[in-house]
């Protein structure tokens, strides 16, 4: 098993490397520099700033310098917010985004998982049609549509819930988490329904019933392990998606998280910020995918045995 894990980790390295390099050169290749949009700057000041941020060096030297900083964990200073480093900004934004993502994921897994399992237990009845129709809505309604609609309904018309901020007013974490989690709850619901249906039609479920075991035991003890595999495999892509979704949700709900910083950095051509956050987020995504693969392989005893040879 260890060989498998290390092998995958090693595979992840070139990926991250490609990400860093590609992002670096892409950002530098973009027309317009970080200071062009600002009010007109006197040439001498501009030159001094460029020197400070190493923009006056040839490209490949900038690259090497960046890599060496990176290895030491230093993501560099921000262009947009002079005086603050990327590390600081990430440190302030990450916990917020992580919390938002965690709530959304929990909503997705719990609501999605349970409704999918219940739907699979009574296929083609109301217990199936209702959650699956709601799931269809969740899939077809983009986050950036659902968010404003929920804000419109609960925030403005009914005035039940706050519509911006994170941790400032009690209850302001509810709408954003639901908005982000809804689409994923829908996917999880469909995946778990399909997975459970597939498993429940297997012969070994018939054997379990023939042993006289109570139905809940058959479903939970025998069915879940196989039925939830597609959901576990989905966790990797889901993580990446949640991150992308956080861009939208944090923008709509004015949440000071990593996602919003990223979007703003993209607009402001804040090179180091873009670079820093891309590197950081990409690494997280790659690692999370790896984790998801490992867990999925581990849950399947046959695969686990093969990988341990």
């Amino acid at each position: 098993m260890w060989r498998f894990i290390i092998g995958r980790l090693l595979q992840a390295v070139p990926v991250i490397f490609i990400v860093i390099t590609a992002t670096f050169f892409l950002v530098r290749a973009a027309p317009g520099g970080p200071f062009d949009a600002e009010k007109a700057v006197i040439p001498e000041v501009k030159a001094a700033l460029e020197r400070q941020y190493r923009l006056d060096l040839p490209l490949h030297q900038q690259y090497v310098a960046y890599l060496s900083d990176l290895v030491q964990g230093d993501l560099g200073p921000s262009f947009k917010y002079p005086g603050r480093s990327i590390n600081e900004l990430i440190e302030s934004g990450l916990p917020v985004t992580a919390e938002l993502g965690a709530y959304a994921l929990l909503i997705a897994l719990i609501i999605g998982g349970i409704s999918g399992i219940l739907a699979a237990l009574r296929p083609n009845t109301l217990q199936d049609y209702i959650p699956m129709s709601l799931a269809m809505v969740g899939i077809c309604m983009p986050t950036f549509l659902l968010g404003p609609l929920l804000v419109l309904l609960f925030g403005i018309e009914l005035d039940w819930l706050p519509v911006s901020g994170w941790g400032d007013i009690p209850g302001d974490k509810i709408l954003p988490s639901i908005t982000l989690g809804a689409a994923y709850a829908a996917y999880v619901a469909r995946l778990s329904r399909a997975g459970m249906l597939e498993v429940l039609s297997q012969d070994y479920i018939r054997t379990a019933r023939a042993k006289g075991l109570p139905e809940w035991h058959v479903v939970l003890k025998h069915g879940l392990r196989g039925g939830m595999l597609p959901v576990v495999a989905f966790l990797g892509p889901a993580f990446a998606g949640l991150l992308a979704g956080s861009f939208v949700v944090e923008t709509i709900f004015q949440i000071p998280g990593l996602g919003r910083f990223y979007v703003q950095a993209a607009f402001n051509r804040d090179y180091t910020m873009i670079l820093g956050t891309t590197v950081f987020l990409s690494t997280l995504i790659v690692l999370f995918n790896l984790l998801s693969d490992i867990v999925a392989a581990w849950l399947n005893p046959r695969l686990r045995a093969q990988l341990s040879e």
Partner: protein
Amino acid sequence: MSLLSVSNLRVDFNTRNGHTIAVNDISFSVEKGQITAIIGESGSGKSVACYSLLGLLPQPPASIESGQALFEGQDLLQMSEAELRAIRGRDIAMIFQDPMTCLNPFMTIGDQLIEPLVYHKNLSEKHALARAKELLVEVGIRDPDTTINNYPHEFSGGMRQRVMIAMALINEPKLLIADEPTTALDVTIQAQILKLIAELQTKRDIGVIFISHDLAVVADIADQIIVMEKGLLVERGDREAIFTDAQHPYTQKLLAAIPSSIKEASTRAPEPLVRVEHLKTYFETPSQLVKAVDDVSFQINKGEILGLVGESGSGKSTIGRSILRLLPITEGTVTFAGTDVTALDKKGLRGMRRRMQMIFQDPYASLNPRMSVYDTLAEPLLLHGIESRKTVEQAVLTLMDDVGLARAFIRKYPHEFSGGQRQRIAIGRALATKPEFIVADEPVSALDVTIQAQILDLLLDLGNQYGLTMLFVSHDLAVVRHIADRIIVLYQGKIVEEGSSEALFTNPQQSYTKTLLHSIPGQSLLAG
């Protein structure tokens, strides 16, 4: 009082294809201490009947229309789900056909074995595990302390079936229902499992229902035999009566379909058409080198049918495919009519293909589902320029006549045919180019017993008619000795014994051959 008494059982099925009567008013009884065999081909309703007794049929689409099933005085068909659940696994237990798919791959066999004990008898896990280990020993699995923590995929097919039997008997049930328990097993393993079931049955004095499509399999162990056809119970009797004095025409047909004859030795002078010399076909997997065919040499004479017999892992299918170069050969040569087939390049090989063809095992998978009968049969004819676009249709119709397919079916698609008909199409395709040599890889193994007999006769007739030379690969000895002139016995990639059918069967030399022969079920009765 009988252990189980079924009267007027009727089970209907309502699917999107229509309404069918799967079990049509059958009545039978099972006695304690006896093995009752229910025999029937696919669609006979034998499994449906037994599953309905335990409420294991999903109801829709099935529905139990009428009937009574008295088990120890209580009607199973009237019981609630909770009552049935108390009986399942405790008083009545079941084992199924394919132990690989019937055991939960995600749980150790220990966890699965103790479940019936924990749930029905409320035993603690510790006691249940101890009891489970005892049972593993009883069914012939050594080393229970380690094996109890293994997963199903770590066992061989025969061992898995033993585990299933242990799991079924762990609660000392009074009735055991076995649904085709040996169909998926190799012949020698099948013999072992049959013996095990018979022994356990006697030892524990329980009643057993043994479902099978193969009369021969139950010939040695059944006390009572029930024959079903298309949902109806057509004959019932004790073993002697059925085998010596069957009344119903369907039973007689089933009996006649069991290949019992041994082909007479051919008087033709041997003239080799195919020569295999030191053939080695090895496969590399990430973990090991599999020597599927390990230095095999033999020849096939013109006009003869050579039988290649072996169990799984013997390499028999690999040899067939290697000769036709459908698989890469690691070492060795194959000569066909004087030409070294192994040395041919792609172009030469394609020319040679006209003369050597193959019939595959699975009639469902060997035909392109998107091509009609016409498309499938015309393809080889047009490819090799045997017929032109104008003449090909007539040729296709003639082929269909040859293999016994009604001409009206020419535009139909594979999924609209039965297994036997599909195999006929496959045979037609193989014959299209008028080959000299045909490799038949388990051509009847996937077919019902009565259809098997028809296809075997067809192959024999066509072989004679066209002067074909055939390599007949099979695991079924009874079939092989009926059709083959000479036989080669394989074991793990090597030739064990070789000889004419007569010689091999009346006077086997090697111990493995002897074991194989003894494993053929039902010999005692059939020989008589």
